[in-house]
């Protein structure tokens, strides 16, 4: 059995949390352009929701990744994608490398309060001139005694405007390409750190997205996660989890969208019958549910392997690719069946349509996923291999 009674109990607990603590506030957060990270994470931290798979020694729960699957499936039932994204950036995108490779001291200082929900974290990889092409980042950490002095800019950073610390990927040597980078934890109270602007986006309005400036920001070298120079590899590993989480969030929110559309078209009448009775519509919705289930199965397979300690680069990339593309299809078709109502801001599908566009871009674009899959499959000759990203 994949899910034990404890798993199911956890599902009900997080489901209730979403219904009672998140959904009633979503409209307000969407309007405000941010979710209140500290308030929400504090509540979730007290319930032990933030460090499901992380060591108990640092306030985590030491559970298997199936709990994270449930966490994401239920979080995706929030009436927006922004807040769940902010939450999962904190729980599964900026913390995995720290939890796995950070020093004891570093985990005490940053992981522990983050799992209690006192700190909000963010992951700072993308730059104005380097997004999916991670190997070309330019932010530099210059050694100075026992410190790093960091200079550079990071763009499109989720939680960036309210984070207490950032997991920053920076160049720590002159080696070109993927070598010579390190992951460094930077407290946002450090002198020289600033948020230059919060960004207005097409969707995910309830999530704050920022540009971060590092102007000679000094942090101890001890803030480096794992070994110096290992940053790119650690981030690539961290990406696996980010991509799998993104895919899980996507199929679950897609399922919600389709089910809402079914309910709407059962009720909405046109040409003398319920809309759902149009074969074009019920065939299409049946087809989409089938694809959603196929994606869920792919994610469950990836999870099984992830739990067994296998490398899931290939499957996580496939899942995120499919998740991004299918999200666009599902929301587009469903919005269509809502007709004029679907174009109205007051109808949830309008928001879902906007929010769905991100997954094909963030966390490595579709094209990067295709490159990784092709490389993993050994399709290309050695020298023209695209860079991993």
């Amino acid at each position, binding site marked *: 059995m994949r899910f034990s*009674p*404890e798993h199911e*109990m*956890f599902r*009900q*607990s997080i489901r*209730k*949390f979403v219904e009672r603590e998140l959904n009633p506030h979503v409209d307000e957060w969407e309007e405000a352009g941010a979710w209140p990270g500290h308030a929400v994470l504090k509540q979730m931290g*007290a*319930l*032990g*929701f933030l460090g*499901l798979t992380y060591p108990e020694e640092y306030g985590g*729960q030491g*559970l298997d990744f199936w709990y994270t699957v449930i966490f994401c499936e239920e979080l995706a039932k929030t009436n927006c994608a922004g807040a769940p994204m902010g939450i999962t950036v904190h729980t599964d995108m900026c913390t995995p490398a720290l939890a796995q490779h950070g020093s004891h001291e570093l985990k005490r200082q940053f992981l522990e309060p983050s799992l209690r929900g006192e700190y909000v974290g963010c992951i700072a990889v993308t730059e104005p001139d380097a997004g999916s092409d991670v190997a070309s980042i330019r932010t530099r950490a210059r050694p100075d005694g026992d410190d790093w002095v960091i200079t550079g800019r990071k763009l499109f950073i989720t939680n960036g405007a309210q984070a207490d610390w950032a997991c920053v990927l920076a160049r720590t040597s002159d080696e070109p390409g993927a070598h010579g980078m390190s992951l460094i934890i930077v407290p946002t109270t450090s002198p020289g750190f600033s948020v230059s602007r919060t960004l207005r986006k097409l969707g995910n309005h309830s999530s704050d997205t920022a540009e971060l400036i590092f102007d000679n920001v000094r942090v101890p070298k001890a803030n480096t996660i794992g070994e110096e120079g290992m940053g790119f590899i650690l981030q690539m590993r961290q990406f696996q989890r980010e991509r799998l989480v993104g895919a899980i969030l996507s199929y679950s929110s897609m399922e919600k969208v389709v089910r809402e559309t079914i309910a709407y078209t059962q009720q909405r009448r046109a040409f003398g019958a319920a809309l759902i009775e149009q074969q074009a519509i019920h065939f299409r919705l049946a087809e989409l549910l089938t694809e959603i289930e196929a994606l869920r199965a792919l994610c469950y397979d990836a999870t099984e392997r992830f739990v067994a300690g296998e490398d899931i680069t290939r499957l996580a990339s496939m899942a995120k690719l499919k998740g991004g593309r299918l999200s666009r299809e599902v929301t587009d078709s469903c919005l269509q069946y809502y007709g004029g109502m679907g174009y109205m801001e007051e109808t949830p599908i309008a928001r879902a349509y906007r929010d769905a566009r991100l997954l094909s871009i963030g966390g490595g674009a579709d094209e990067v996923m295709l490159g990784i899959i092709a490389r993993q499959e050994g399709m290309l000759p050695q020298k023209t291999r695209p860079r991993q990203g």
Partner: protein
Amino acid sequence: MNIVVCMKETPSITAVKRFTADMRLERRKEDAEINPFDEYALEEGLRQREKHGGEVIALCMGPVTATENIRKALAIGADRGVLVTDPALEGSDAIGTARALAAALQKLGFDLALFGSAAADSYGGVVPAAVAEVLGQPLLSFASKLEIADGRAKIERAAETGYQVAEAAIPALVSVIQTINVPRYPSMKGIMQSKKKPIDTFSLADLGVDATLVGVAGAREKATGSSPVDTQRKGELFSGNDGAADRIVAFLVEQKVL
């Protein structure tokens, strides 16, 4: 303080309700949840334990599968569970249920027995009173606030223009309403601990209850029919200038709106 929270397993409010041939609600395991009204009783029990110490027991009468929902109460924070289950209890009415619960309460011993104000499936709302009657102990009903001090339980009961205050010596039974507190969520820690907490099972024989007084055999009440609420929307159109306003007023008066 020994606190026993009586809880019922009910089908979730959103589940489709079906009836058996003898007009009993068909209970499906997958739809079963803790009666939402009882969540407030459980929360109140936990809060009283936090103030006064002692133990919270989740007591449930139901089928063997109700163990899962007792486990949920343990995840939320109860210390141990007790399931009263027996084939002869099937089809019990409120009085039969009260006999079984009263016997269990007596066996367990308690300072405070807490109840939700009603069950979401039947809305009878008489079980707490019937249990109090069987036990010969006081019931403070529909509490919106509960305080235990100096061996007495004191409640506030919301009334139309204010609230009433009532009190009784403990051991006492108290039924609570939804404004009394905000139930907590099961925490991850609570969920993981719940599987290690004990759940005892009592049969009618364990409780010394005569099987002919409970279940279908002892039921004084019998459901004879049910029908869905007619949700068909009906419209009535008043048009034209000629007397339409009068007809609308007459309609509103008839509907007791005016």
